[in-house]
């Protein structure tokens, strides 16, 4: 695929290919664009390659083919100014365990031209993290919170969150989401995150992206998908005629017995279903299980 990089994208992946060493293909000609201010929830089954995709997006893995650009720059050769605009909460804690939180944050602070110490202090006290004991003594949830504080401290323009709330309890998750909504989204930052907790994703991800078979199979505003996607059931010939009549875009077909099938399809925006056509609405769980 050849086109000019889009300077309006916070992140742009084009034709990205990646195999695990001696293993199967993970990303197979993947194209993906994140526009400034978009908040995108990344959905995919276990092992679909979400973490690999996020690491590739950040320039932490070099694809075998294709191109990754962040703020218009080659992700593998980012300059310090672009690097300072990125925040990342990895799935596995990568904090220096022998440091105290205070030492860790002071260390990171030295790398960033912008650093909001008031925000750091506020979150440290709100999230009840002691600044003066070694990180290895913190609980999993506290380490995850500290990792989030580290990623938010320099007010990044692009925030990448890989399962950021896996170790948090429901109250901790809600508080984290409020922080995201109130501070990060309010600033117009671009956010991409993966999580298995669909209810969290439904709240804050205005857009959802489905990773399936090494590609982004679909990315759209979740509101639009819930308004426009329906499940239809009937004979294969009936379904083909119905899709044509409705101008609907089939997203997934599942064969049933006796020449029948179930079709998940997206109706054109703002069209009502004609009377007499039976269809089921879907929720985010249905979309996840059928499109990933």
């Amino acid at each position, binding site marked *: 695929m050849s086109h000019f990089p889009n300077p309006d994208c916070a992140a742009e992946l084009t034709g990205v290919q990646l195999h695990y060493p001696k293993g199967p293909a993970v990303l197979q000609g993947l194209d993906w664009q994140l526009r400034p201010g978009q*908040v995108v929830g990344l959905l995919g089954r276990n092992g679909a390659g979400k973490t690999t995709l996020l690491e590739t997006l950040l320039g932490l893995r070099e694809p075998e083919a294709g191109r990754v650009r962040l703020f218009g720059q080659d992700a593998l050769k980012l300059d310090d100014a672009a690097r300072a605009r990125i925040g990342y909460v990895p799935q596995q804690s990568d904090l220096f365990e022998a440091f105290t939180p205070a030492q860790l944050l002071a260390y990171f602070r030295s790398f960033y031209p912008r650093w909001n110490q008031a925000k750091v202090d506020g979150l440290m006290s709100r999230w009840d993290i002691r600044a003066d004991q070694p990180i290895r003594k913190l609980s999993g949830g506290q380490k995850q919170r500290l990792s989030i504080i580290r990623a938010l401290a320099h007010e990044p323009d692009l925030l990448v969150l890989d399962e950021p709330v896996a170790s948090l309890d429901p109250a901790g998750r*809600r508080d984290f*989401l*409020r922080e*995201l*909504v*109130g501070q990060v*989204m*309010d600033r117009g930052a671009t956010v991409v995150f993966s999580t298995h907790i*669909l*209810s969290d994703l*439904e*709240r*804050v*991800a*205005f857009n959802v992206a489905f990773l399936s078979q090494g590609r982004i199979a679909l990315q759209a505003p*979740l*509101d639009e998908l*819930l*308004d426009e996607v329906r499940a239809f059931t009937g004979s294969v010939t009936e379904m083909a005629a119905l899709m044509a009549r409705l101008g609907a875009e089939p997203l997934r077909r599942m064969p049933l017995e006796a020449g029948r099938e179930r079709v998940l399809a997206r109706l054109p925006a703002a069209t009502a279903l004609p009377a007499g056509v039976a269809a089921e*609405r*879907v*929720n*985010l*769980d249905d979309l996840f299980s059928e499109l990933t």
Partner: protein
Amino acid sequence: MDPLHFVHINTGSTEPIYRQVIEQVKRRVAAGQLKAGDAIPSVRELAQALAVHPMTVSKAYSLLESDGVLERRRGLSMVVAAQHQQAQPTADRAELLRPTLQKAAAEARQLQLSKTQALTLFKTILDENTP
């Protein structure tokens, strides 16, 4: 208006969050709980209280504005529109319940419940939730 208790949303629904906000505000205006000139939470306040994306709230507010339920005051704040001086007549309010009951009726038929069985259940539920 306390943004934490202004509306409640359910995740996992087939109804997008912005529509849940719209329907609840409409019901509260129809019931006269919210009246002309009442201030409603700002987009930021409600987004943060619900922990939802601010665009979801602003989409709901814009649609409520174009439906004549809300109006924009000077600046960015929104209030309940001037025409909503009092609760709507009972018949109009009952009409707002129709879509939910139609859905319940369809499910009752699928479950092969009799009219009496379904109505008894509805009565029980109404009694249960009386504060």
